[in-house]
């Protein structure tokens, strides 16, 4: 069996044409191609990974494309500023301005529209609105039935609420949670025609709660879809041995194994960088310690067996870990 490396992508050079403060902590970036007239076409729900060179290291963060898939002369992404130590959103908010050039991966889609759905119910929480901006544009063009329910803390923190209402009228409902408004999940789940698919994107708790409610309302798993924007969790630093590269790599508190390995010059395959797609699955050759599986990909048996690790999200505590890289 021979596979070629699948993840070294043909990266695209873009220039930031515009930066807009669209809500409290949300900035929208408009990206145009540098070396060509058009950017690759894409499907609603797709994301690009932005490369940021932050002094000592390279940060790679995925962001959903929110612009319409019909528009290929510019992409738009939105970044929520969060107080986390990894630095990606901080970088975008403080070091990127009109004229800045960035390398991005071509679009990849891990959250596509289900082609056979009779109706699409989209549930967004906070910055989770971003993939739905593109998906609603696509659904609207294809004339599919959809409803978007968008929960935001306040009017001011909810980017795009007004724009969405203007575009889609009654198909969009907005909920300001600081005023006690909540998405009426139970009612929503109760009365949908057969063939309705539900999509949720937002904070972890919201996603888990929506999916659980869907199951309890008798919806089959195949009709429930989510996209998680979970950054890799931090933890105590540790050392990983890369058997094939013959390197010992130090994984810091606020970086993932994947990031540390990339910084050391090794480029394993990856795609979502969020533990769901399986691309970065790596074989564990030996270990003396505990694997902390933080992904949503391996089965319980696979985790217990300890032979594989999703290096974009998972960590290690112990004396020795050797990976097949």
């Amino acid at each position, binding site marked *: *069996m*021979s*596979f*070629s*490396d*699948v993840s070294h*992508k*043909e990266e695209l050079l873009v220039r930031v044409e515009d930066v807009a403060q669209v809500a409290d902590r949300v900035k929208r970036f408009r990206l145009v191609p540098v070396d060509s007239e058009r950017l*690759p*076409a*894409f*499907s609603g729900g*797709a994301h690009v990974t932005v490369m940021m060179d932050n002094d000592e290291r390279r940060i790679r963060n995925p962001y959903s494309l929110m612009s319409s*898939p019909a528009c290929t002369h510019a992409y738009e992404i939105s970044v929520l500023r969060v107080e986390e130590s990894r630095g990606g959103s901080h970088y975008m908010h403080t070091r990127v301005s009109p004229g800045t050039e960035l390398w991005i*991966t*071509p*679009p*990849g*889609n891990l959250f*596509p529209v*289900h*082609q*056979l759905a009779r109706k699409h119910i989209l549930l967004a929480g906070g910055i989770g609105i971003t993939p739905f901006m593109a998906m609603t544009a696509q659904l609207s063009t*294809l004339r599919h039935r959809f409803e978007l329910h968008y929960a935001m803390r306040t009017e001011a923190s909810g980017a795009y609420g007004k724009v969405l209402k203007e575009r889609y009228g009654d198909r969009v409902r907005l909920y300001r949670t600081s005023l006690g408004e909540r998405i009426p999940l139970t009612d929503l789940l109760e009365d949908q025609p057969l063939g309705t698919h539900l999509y949720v994107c937002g904070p972890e708790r919201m996603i888990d709660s929506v999916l659980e409610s869907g199951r309890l309302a008798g919806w089959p798993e*195949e009709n429930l879809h989510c996209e998680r924007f979970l950054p890799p969790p931090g933890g105590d630093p540790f050392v990983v041995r890369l058997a094939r590269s013959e390197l010992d790599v130090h994984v810091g508190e606020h970086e993932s194994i994947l990031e540390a390995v990339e910084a050391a010059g090794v480029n394993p395959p990856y*795609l979502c960088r969020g533990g769901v*797609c*399986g*691309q970065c699955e790596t074989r564990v050759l030996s270990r003396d310690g505990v694997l902390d599986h933080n992904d949503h990909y391996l089965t319980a048996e696979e985790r217990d067996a300890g032979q594989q690790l999703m290096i974009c999200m998972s960590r290690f505590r112990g004396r020795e870990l050797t990976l097949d890289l």
Partner: protein
Amino acid sequence: MALDFHTETFRDDFTFYNSPEAIRRFPFPFDRDEYMYSVNIETHTPGPVGSVLEHPIDVDEHYVSEMRDRALVLAEDPLRCQSLPHMDLAGWDLLELLMTNMASDYPDHFSLEQGPGNRWHWVNRPLGIDDTFVFGDTSTLPPRPGGAEGGEPMGPMEYVTRQSQGDFCLLDQRDDNLWMDAGITTTQADWSLDFDIGMNFFEWHGPVPLAHEMGVFDRALKYLLNLQQSRAARRLNWTMTINPRLDTSPENYHKWGIERSTVTPENVGEKVHLRVELQVFFRLPRSNAIVFPIRCYLISLNDLVTVPGWGQRLHRVLSTLPPELAEYKGLSGYLDVTRAWLAKYDEAAART
């Protein structure tokens, strides 16, 4: 560089022939003396100049005649080209992929102008086609050739694949699986689009022996589910055909199957053909579907043995082929007589 298109047939009188150049560039699939399944997928990067892998989409001297044969098959059996309703967008993605590549790599034969307002102008000189249409708007496509004047427009997949060599399968990606929801099959090795349309990856590969147990399909599916726009992939598949018949469909099997019993020690070189499929996998941007072109190359054993080493290698592959594979590939009826004929090209066999 312009291609010299043949006038030849892949049925009835079988006037098909390969030029010396076609023989030289034939994608001989065996890199060792035995054959067993593997995932054998690799990145579809440009191959050597003049090879079948030089361009993402390969057009060769058989282009015009293959399209003529395709049109005959479709006139007899329209069910060879079907698209489930939700696959229209994927059809447009495919049209863009094929037209842009053909125009870019074979400018002597094809041109494409992508004008404002999505108005496209496509010229296909070998087939005498000159059309304008609005990209994404099926109502602006021409009707089926040979149909009533002012008939319904063709869908984008049918329109473009009537002008592209090889079969095509459009796969919808959903539920962690791939679904064959559209396709055109007039040059396939013995499977029915009409029967298989709507099946998922494991189901349409159902009849393939041994590979499932080996986990080949699990790994292949995982790879394909993560296929990205910027990185196409490819693999080679092979079988054998008696006479250079393109349409070896199950639909017509009751008519052509008999040819497998007509091989004699005298006619092996002329009748028995190695048939290689170049399968490529492209991720399509707007639909997120995967298109899987299956490009078919035929070579008679007489021509094959003119390339040093090929006769010997093929002899050894056929001599070690597991019986289930020989059965599945339909070779059982003529395997022995073919092996015997090839033995004289195998140094080891010739010595014994």
